[in-house]
C-alpha cells in the first residue's frame, strides 16, 4: 500500500512536468513578442531595436530555451504568472483568484445535484431493471447525452426565468442566480453517472456473493444497500471523484450563457482579447487540478478496497 502510494505519487511528477512544458511551449508559440508587450505595458513611447534587444536581455529571452523554461517554471511554482496583457495593472493570479469563487460555488452546487440524483436513480434503475422507471430513465440518459448543454441552458433560461419568472435570467449576485446554471451543468453529468452506477450495480448483482447472500437468508433490501451498492460505489470512487475537476472545467459554457463572472468566462474573454498569460495560467491550473484529483481519488479507491489495501 505504502509502496503503491509512493509509486503513484512519483509517476505524477513526469505528468506535471509534461503539462508545464506544454504550457511553456504554448506561451512561446504565441505570435506576439513578450519584450514588445513588456515595453508597451510600461508605456514606452518609441520602441527602437536597441531598446527591444536590451529588454530581451533583461527578461532573459536571449538565453537558451531550456534555461528560459526553468526560469519560467520557478516563477510558476511561486504562482507568479505575470501580468494580464489587457489590464496591465492586474496580475494574472489576481484575475484567477477573483473568478475562482463564482466557479467554485457553481461547481459545488452542481456536484451536490449530481451526487444526490445520480446515485439513487442509478440504484433504482438497476434494482427495477426494465421497469417503467428504468425505461424512462434510460430514455432520459440517452436524450441528455445528445443535448448540447448550451441548448439545455437556453431552454431552462426561457422556461424558468422568462416564462415562469422563478429565477433571475443572468448574473451572479445572489444564490438564486446560481441555481439554474448549476442544474444545467449537473444535467449533462448526471446521465453519465446514472449509467455508470446502474451498470456497476447490474454487474455486481450477477456475482456469486449476491446469490450466496440470498441463500444465507438475508433480506433483499439489505443485500442491495449493504453489499451491492457498497461494492458498486467502491468501483466508481475515482470516476465520481474526477467529476469535481470536470465540473470546474465544465462550467465554461454555462458561465458564458448565464453571464457568471467565473473562470470559464474569464478564459473565453481572454481568448477574445488575446490575453495569453491568463489563458496559459488557466490551462495550467486545470491540468494540475485534473492530475491531482486523479492521484488523490486513485489512492482513496485503493485504500477503500481490502483486497488492495493489505497487499504488498
Amino acid at each position: 500500500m505504502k509502496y503503491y502510494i509512493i509509486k503513484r505519487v512519483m509517476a505524477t511528477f513526469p505528468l506535471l512536468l509534461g503539462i508545464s512544458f506544454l504550457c511553456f511551449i504554448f506561451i512561446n508559440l504565441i505570435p506576439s513578442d513578450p519584450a514588445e508587450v513588456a515595453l508597451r505595458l510600461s508605456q514606452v513611447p518609441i520602441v527602437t531595436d536597441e531598446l527591444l534587444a536590451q529588454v530581451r536581455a533583461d527578461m532573459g529571452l536571449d538565453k537558451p530555451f531550456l534555461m528560459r523554461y526553468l526560469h519560467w517554471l520557478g516563477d510558476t511554482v511561486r504562482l507568479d504568472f505575470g501580468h494580464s496583457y489587457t489590464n496591465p495593472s492586474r496580475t494574472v493570479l489576481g484575475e484567477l483568484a477573483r473568478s475562482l469563487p463564482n466557479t467554485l460555488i457553481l461547481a459545488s452546487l452542481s456536484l451536490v445535484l449530481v451526487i444526490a440524483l445520480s446515485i439513487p436513480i442509478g440504484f433504482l434503475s438497476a434494482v427495477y431493471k426494465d421497469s417503467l422507471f428504468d425505461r424512462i430513465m434510460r430514455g432520459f440518459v440517452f436524450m441528455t447525452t445528445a443535448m448540447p448543454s448550451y441548448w439545455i441552458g437556453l431552454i431552462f433560461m426561457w422556461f424558468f426565468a422568462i416564462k415562469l419568472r422563478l429565477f433571475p435570467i443572468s448574473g451572479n449576485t445572489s444564490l438564486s442566480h446560481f441555481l439554474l446554471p448549476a442544474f444545467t451543468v449537473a444535467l449533462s453529468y448526471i446521465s453519465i453517472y446514472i449509467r455508470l452506477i446502474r451498470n456497476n450495480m447490474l454487474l455486481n448483482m450477477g456475482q456469486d456473493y449476491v446469490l450466496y447472500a440470498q441463500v444465507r437468508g438475508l433480506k433483499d433490501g439489505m443485500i442491495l444497500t449493504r453489499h451491492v451498492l457498497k461494492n458498486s460505489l467502491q468501483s466508481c470512487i475515482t470516476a465520481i471523484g474526477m467529476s469535481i475537476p470536470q465540473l470546474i472545467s465544465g462550467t465554461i459554457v454555462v458561465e458564458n450563457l448565464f453571464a457568471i463572472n467565473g473562470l470559464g468566462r474569464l478564459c473565453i474573454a481572454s481568448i477574445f482579447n488575446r490575453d495569453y498569460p491568463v489563458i496559459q495560467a488557466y490551462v495550467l491550473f486545470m491540468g494540475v487540478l485534473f492530475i491531482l484529483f486523479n492521484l488523490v481519488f486513485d489512492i482513496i479507491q485503493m485504500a477503500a478496497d481490502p483486497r488492495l489495501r493489505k497487499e504488498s
Partner: protein
Amino acid sequence: MTSDNRVLQVENLTVRYKNRKRITTLVDDLSFHVDRGECLGILGESGSGKSMSSKAIMGILPPRQFDVTGSARFHTGSEEPTDLLRIKKEERRAVRGRKITMILQNPMACFDPLFPMGTQMAETVRENTETPVKEIRGLCQQVLKDMQIRSPEEVLLKYPHQLSGGMLQRIMIGLALVTKPDLIIADEPTTAIDSITQFEIIGELLKIKEQGTAMIFISHDLGVVNRMANRVIVMHRAKSLQQGTLAEIIQNPGDEYTRQLVNSRLTLVDQFNSFLREPGVSA
C-alpha cells in the same frame, strides 16, 4: 416409507427460462423426495439442470426471467407441509437460510470482498437465529472451531481474499449448520477446490450425514456421489433419467446416457485397480 419421515416432496418441477422470443426448458417435469437422515444425490453433467432445480426450490431465481411450475412440499416439525413454490416471498426467505440451507460451489466468490468474515457470519447468524447480540461473536468462533479452523479469532477479522478456498468452503458448511436446518442442499461443494481439500470437505459432509440431517448432494462426480448418497437421480438434458440406489443404477442402467456414464467411470476405476494390482499386491 412413512410420510412422517418426509422432509421434501418435489413433484413435476419444471423451470423455463424466458429470453425475449425463446423459451428454454431447463428442468423438465422433475419429481423426487428426500427423507429425514437420508442423502439424495443428483448426478449429471453441467447444464443438465441439477443446479437449476435446487435454485428453484430455494426460490432464488429472478421471477421475471424464470417460470417455475410444479410443487415442492416442505415438511418441518409437526406442522402442515408448505409448498415452497407457492408461499409468499417473505415466508420463503424465512425458510431459506434457516430451515433449508445451502452450500455453493466456488467459495472464493461467495463472500462480499469488502467485509471481514466476522461481519458476514454475524449478519447471517443475526438474520436466522434468535441468538442474543452479545453471544453472536462467540457463536461464530464456535462455528469455526467445529470446522477445525485454527485461531478462529483471527479468521473472523480476515477478508475473504485472505483465506483459502478450502477454508471458505468449510466456513460455508459451518454457516449451513449453525441454524440446525431440516435440509441442507450442497451444490457441487467440491468442484472448485483441489483434491486434498476435497477429501477433507467430503469428510465434514459425511459427519453431517451421520448426524441425521437430510441432504441433497449435487455433483457431476460419480465417485463423490457414491460416497455420499443413499439414493441417486441421474439428470441429463433437463430430465431425470433414473432414480434409485447407486448399486441398482450401476447394475441396471436403464438408458443410453446412464450406461455411458457408468461405463466410462467403471473403466476408469478398473484401470486404476489393475494398476494397483500389477505389482502383486493382493486384492
